């Protein structure tokens, strides 16, 4: 964890702002949007026009998707024009990766891996839901708090607490949803 100082908050806000308005980033995104729009348009044109059902030609299934494909291409081209006018093609100065940004990226990939592992790997593949949830919560808390626990020399206690929280949360969610509100769980 990073200290809640004004400097850290400002750096984090600055990095977020630069990510949002980067002209080079916008240029790459606009090319992706144009590709999506063209793919949508092609798929819409290839859709069956249901002539054998003698439908009204103005109600073909591909009408609105085709229009949306065109709209996405148009907006993508507007973004290309805007990015180029903001010097997206000019040589960019590579900013060094700060420890805070590296830390943020590592956490992001770790959390993604854990969440996908739980929802696609554990859930619905034979394990009781409460057990899968308990395992996920325990491992996630343990992984995210490990550095702090190590710093405070409380690793065993912290992991034990994570296991208790995970088990309680898993069982409570199962009881509340399945037994009390009669909602089926995976």
């Amino acid at each position: 964890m990073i200290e809640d100082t004004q400097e850290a908050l400002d750096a984090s806000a600055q990095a977020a702002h630069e990510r949002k308005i980067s002209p080079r980033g916008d240029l790459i995104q606009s090319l992706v949007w144009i590709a999506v729009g063209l793919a949508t348009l092609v798929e819409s044109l290839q859709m069956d026009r249901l002539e054998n059902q003698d439908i009204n030609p103005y109600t073909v299934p591909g009408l609105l998707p085709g229009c949306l494909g065109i709209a996405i291409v148009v907006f993508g081209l507007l973004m290309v024009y805007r990015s180029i006018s903001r010097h997206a093609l000019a040589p960019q100065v590579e900013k060094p990766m700060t420890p805070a940004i590296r830390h943020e990226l590592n956490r992001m990939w770790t959390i993604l891996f854990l969440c996908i592992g739980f929802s696609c790997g554990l859930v619905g593949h034979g394990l009781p839901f409460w057990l899968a949830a308990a395992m996920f919560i325990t491992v996630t808390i343990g992984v995210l708090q490990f550095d702090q626990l190590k710093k405070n020399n409380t690793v065993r206690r912290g992991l034990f607490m994570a296991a208790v929280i995970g088990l309680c949360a898993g069982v409570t969610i199962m009881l509340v949803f399945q037994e009390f509100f009669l909602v089926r769980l995976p």
Partner: protein
Amino acid sequence: MLDGLQMLGTSYLSFLNFWSLSYGLGGAFIGILVGCMPGLSATLCIALLTTLTIKMAPNDAILILICAYVGTLYGGSRSAILLNIPGTAANAASCADGYALALQGQAGRAIGIATSGAFTGTLFGVICLAMFTPSLAEIALSFGAFEFFWLALFGVAMSGSIVGEDPIKGWLMGCLGLLIAQIGQEGLYAYNRFTFGWDEMSGGISLIPALIGAFGFAEVLTTLADPIERKIIEMRDSVLPRFREVAQYWRTVFRSGVIGVVTGILPGIGEDSGAWMSYAAAKAVSPEREKFGKGSIDGLMAAETGDMSAIPGGIIPALALGIPGSAPAAVLMAAMIIHGIQPGPMLMIKTPQFVYDVVAMTTIATFSILLFGLFMVRPLLLVLRVKRTVLMPIIFVLCTVGAFAISSRLFDVYCMIIIGIGAFFLRRRGYEMAPFVLGLVLGELLDKSLRRGLVLSDGSLEPFFVRPICTALALVTLFTMLMYIPAVNERFTQGWQSFKAMFSRKSS
């Protein structure tokens, strides 16, 4: 009018029983807890509670959802004041003055003012909900396919233009939402679109799992990826506001209430715009303009009143037109449909009592937040002390349950994951979710209205532009979009300045 009053009275009486009041208080309590926690939105709260209440009676379920909706937006002011992080996007306008007051040792006073503003704003919105919903529904009965086409397009375009900092990105998200809504069997001939041979895609992408992904999973990733742990300011003073202090800002309350309801009615705009516009309007006319951003009571009152009055405002078009005013209103609408209530112009014909039931439910929600806001402040603040590394994994488990529970399909869980990952990366690049949500909700309406309209006009586009309401909507939509193009905006501004100068020369 007398019939309306009678139905309103019947509605209020029907909810004055132990279980209804308990459900209402419970819903508001959960909403406030969720709202207090930064990163968790009203949309996510209502989506998760929809799955929890799916087996309950419709009126009980909708009561819990409405109370949770109001509670979440009110609860967000707590973290705005004590952490300088808005609990929901709608509370962002409360951060500046609320947090400044907290730093001056007046956190309790700020919470008291926020509570007063929230209570009066919601109550004002409830009155407008009761008055305008039946009238708007009556007008909407004359709408045809052409009008609904433009209403749907207007909602998505307006949302893309106003929400966020980049209108092009907003319109792209609107188009993406509309496109995803086309996946699956289309409504006229049951033809499979964009399914690529997968049977599971025939049912399309369900709204609730998609919203849980966009607002739940994406927020979990955003919150946990942020390495900075923020400190909470201690609250030492009393939260009970002085009546005189609230009464002296009656103009601000009334003005912000009107602005909030109007922004709530406009499709896709949302409560955060209601808060910011009310704040800006209060600052423009305040004799103490320099205090705004530094602990202005006027500013905090305006932000909270505008934000909360937009809630009933957003429910008005959802009930009367079947077009939600905001993302949470969209989920509320989906929940109504799940419970067999069809929002739209026919609601006042088929089940008019339900409209007044919603008025009664929103009133219960209003008094619930007043009760919790004034007398349960310190216990509710304990939730802010729970570490997000503990809370967020639990929230993700709830997101998984929520996505699965609607149709008992793992496919919905996978959709939630994919949309959540997409939403997370898109938000980091400045793309807002509100236009995407509106596109998802209005996609089917837009598709059917376009095709029906073309059948009725035999392929001619003329009725889409010459019918009076269509003309008005088309002009507003096109004008709003064109004004965001800098070259057009500049020419228009120059022309407007010349026009004004011409009249000032004539008068002199």
